[in-house]
């Protein structure tokens, strides 16, 4: 049968697969068909592994017929092109990694695979996850499904556009400073950035190691909970993954907010914020109050320093993390070099885009002898203060409600020539990465032009149960209005 996937969630799909309403092959084929039809406009995918995906789907159907119990058995997923899936490309949307095939599975991928997930295709992104619009991809410009002239956000713009635009039931993304939550908000899907250490980073091509985290783009909070519980948990291969027990998140969702205290950080409701965004978020806050939550004002006094702190730490780490892309062992090597150092220069000059070069240069500078204390060390101190801000706030409330970004999606090209302006758009999201806490973006409305707006719910470290609970209750109450 033809499977309608336009609004299909992973949870719905699993019910229907289990009930025999459609097969994994049919479902996977439907997603492939949707990509064929829509992707020429959306440009969400960099590559689609059709044959392998259909073969895996057929295996999943057989497994299900013989009693297979995988929690994601036969569900096709899209994966941001920064996560390693054995045998698939992993270009990070960079010319430098064109033609690279990954020799191994990331731990998160291996865990999803063990539950029967099918890895269908690779989604577009800002090169090496550096950017907020997906304009920094070396290969194509992903468009916002809500308005094709608008950016989908970034850096996980391809994943967000695929999920919101009907080309994937769910997708994996990564979030270093908002790269899951902001595109989820711009495109209108649910974007979860878990606590640092919740999901192993092994196999995630590093941008900024102390900030990066794998997460999901889904069509429901329940799906986010389901993917999280499969991917989470300590991994021997990632020393920074934390050995904290993994609750059955999808079974602990709530429908009301009785007894929940929610904080509104005053520093996140600022002058110059887009009025439509503010209105949508304030309405969401009111709705949470209606659902029984107590709403209190809180303060995160060091928020003003977050952008500077973030761009020092992230670029410093990136300057070392990206040093390995030298053309020696893999990737595209520039021709005509006279010696190894010359080869590095030519390979990296030709292989990296402007934004990546800008950040490598910034990061190299802040770590240089004589500047380290003034930049990197100061940033680390400020990071500690920002983390302390959140710890204090979470003594007063269970979760925080904020906008995801000061604006809705903007036009393609609008900020492309003004990197600083673009960096400032990360002001509400980088703090969660600096503090290592969890956050989720849940659709909460739209502008008069129909551009989606997201509500950000921030929770303490390993407080995923709390933000998923709030997100689910809020989401369900919106559905009740439909």
């Amino acid at each position: 049968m033809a499977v309608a996937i336009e609004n299909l969630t992973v949870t719905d799909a699993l019910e229907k697969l289990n009930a025999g309403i459609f097969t994994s092959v049919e479902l996977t084929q439907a997603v492939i068909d949707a990509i064929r039809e829509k992707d020429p406009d959306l440009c969400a995918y960099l590559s689609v592994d059709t044959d392998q995906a259909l073969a895996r789907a057929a295996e999943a159907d057989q497994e299900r017929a013989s009693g297979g119990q995988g929690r994601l058995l036969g569900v096709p997923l899209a994966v941001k092109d920064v996560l390693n899936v054995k045998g698939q490309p992993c270009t990070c949307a960079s010319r430098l990694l064109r033609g690279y095939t990954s020799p191994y599975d990331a731990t998160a991928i291996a865990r999803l695979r063990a539950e029967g997930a099918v890895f269908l295709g690779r989604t577009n992104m800002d090169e090496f996850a550096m950017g907020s619009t997906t304009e920094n991809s070396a290969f194509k410009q992903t468009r916002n499904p809500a308005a094709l002239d608008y950016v989908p956000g970034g850096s996980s713009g391809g994943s967000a556009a695929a999920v919101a635009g009907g080309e994937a039931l769910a997708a994996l993304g990564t979030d270093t400073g908002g790269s899951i939550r902001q595109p989820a908000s711009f495109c209108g899907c649910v974007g979860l950035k878990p606590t640092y250490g919740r999901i192993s980073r092994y196999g995630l091509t590093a941008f900024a190691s102390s900030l990066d985290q794998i997460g999901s783009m889904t069509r429901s909070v329940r799906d986010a909970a389901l993917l999280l519980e499969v991917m989470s948990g300590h991994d021997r291969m990632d020393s920074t993954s934390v050995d904290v027990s993994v609750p059955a998140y999808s079974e602990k969702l709530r429908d009301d907010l009785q007894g929940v205290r929610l904080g509104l950080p005053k520093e996140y409701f600022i002058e110059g914020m887009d009025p439509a965004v503010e209105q949508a978020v304030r309405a969401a806050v009111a709705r949470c109050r209606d659902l029984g939550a107590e709403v209190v004002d809180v303060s995160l006094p060091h928020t003003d320093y977050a952008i500077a702190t973030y761009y020092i730490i992230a670029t410093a780490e990136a300057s070392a993390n990206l040093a390995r892309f030298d053309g020696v062992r893999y990737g595209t090597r520039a021709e005509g070099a006279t010696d190894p150092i010359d080869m590095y220069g030519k390979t990296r000059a030709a292989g990296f885009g402007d934004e990546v070069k800008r950040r490598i240069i910034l990061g190299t500078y802040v770590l240089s002898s004589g500047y380290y204390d003034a930049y990197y060390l100061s940033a680390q101190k400020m990071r500690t203060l920002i983390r302390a801000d959140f710890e204090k706030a979470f003594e007063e409330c269970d979760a925080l409600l904020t906008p995801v970004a000061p604006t809705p999606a903007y036009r393609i090209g609008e900020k492309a020539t003004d990197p600083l302006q673009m960096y400032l758009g990360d002001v509400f999201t980088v703090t969660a990465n600096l503090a290592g806490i969890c956050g989720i973006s849940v659709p909460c409305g739209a502008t008069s032009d129909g551009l989606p707006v997201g509500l950000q719910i921030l929770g303490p470290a390993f407080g995923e149960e709390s933000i998923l609970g709030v997100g689910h209750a809020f989401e369900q109450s919106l559905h009740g209005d439909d």
Partner: protein
Amino acid sequence: MVMIERVVTGPLVPGNDMTDDSAMKYVPTIGLEVHVQLRTASKMFCACSTEFGAEPNTHVCPVCLGYPGAMPVMNGRAIELTVRTGLMIGSEISGFSKFDRKSYFYPDMPKNYQISQYDKPLCLGGEVEADDEGRLVRVRIHRIHLEEDVAKNMHFQSASGIDFNRAGTPLMEIVTEPDMHSAADAYAFLQALKQIVAYAGVSDCNLEEGNIRCDVNVSVCPESQSELGTKAEIKNMNTFKGVYSAVGYEIERQIAVLEGGGRVVQETRRWDPDREVTSSMRTKEDEHDYRYFPEPDLMPVVLDPLQVNSWKESLPEAPRARRERMVDAYGIPDYDAGVLAAERSVADFFEAAAKASNNPKAVSNWIMTEMLRLLSEANVSIEAIPVTPKALAGLVALVDAGRINSNTAKDVFAELFEQGGDPEVIVKEKGLLQVSDTDAIEAFADQAISENPQSVDDYRGGKKAALQFLVGQVMRLSRGKANPQMVAKLLAEKM
């Protein structure tokens, strides 16, 4: 402190007057950074084998090749071995230690940064006491840290290749204070350090396989000057002999520069072992800015004091302490004790044999001469041969009791060395017991006298040397078993 006269060799400063009594004196100062490859089964941050000599690029994985997304995982054994080394030399063990990234681009560096330790090394301080032909050389240790080794570049006729098997092997870097003042000091220190590291079971210490490599900092300053001179660093030496020669050369070179009115340039130099000279690699202006920052992929190392204590309690006796104790306990000369204590397994063998014997000095002689010679000829370790300490003690007892002569004993030892077994049994089975039976020896003596009338005449004519010839004949006739002292006595009486 050792003062070096203005030692000038011809090619450096031609025409210098070596007999000038008013020559200025210079004090050389030397510090070492010694890299020791640790004895671990797997690499520092991944599960790949550290086996030496495998086909290129067979012990590799995404982690040690620096593939996108791969992450390091600490090898706990490497931490333990480094801490054990620190404990052996009296370092303070850091309760909190961490790893850092050291950035520079080079084809042998898979990630183009090395995971090392910058400001929080595992061990701080300590001291090594070395011996230069009876002179005590004391060298303070600044710090010991842990890092990963790089790959090996290989150059072919028209291309270069990289073997990543070695990339990520655990390396312990021991940094000394500038406490050495001659090539001999540096050599003695390295010998002592090698002994300590081998005793602690920390490294195989195989110099041919590059298990120990060092960077040498050398400066000289006039005796009258209190602050140190400008130093040059000589990189990546992998023999102790090379260090000795390079330090000697560098001291003379720097003195010659100063004598010629020049200034020593702060720079990195390389040692050419064929031409026996150092030459400039890069000056200070070209030094890398390593841009160290804390490795975000690893957690800090927080050591449990109870664990450190249990390592401390299980440490072996240090080689120098053992040498002193063996002199006291077995009454052997200090020189012997030094030779025996140089290797832990040799000292273990000696002590076991000496305890089973009434004659430790004879045991020591056997080990120092026959055994070490045969071991070195066969290129095997003492653990790999079948002879037991008890068998050596038994052999010494047979000689002491006059039951075999010393020539026979050597043959028996050779047999033990090859086949093992009980010397008593070997001697009996092969009928090697010394013949001290007068009748049997008399018969051989008579035969020798009758067969060699010329020698008998010579002896009677006053040529005492002829007796030795006749003794040799009797020994031959007895197939080496006759007691030579007895033979000489009997022959003399008969003639």
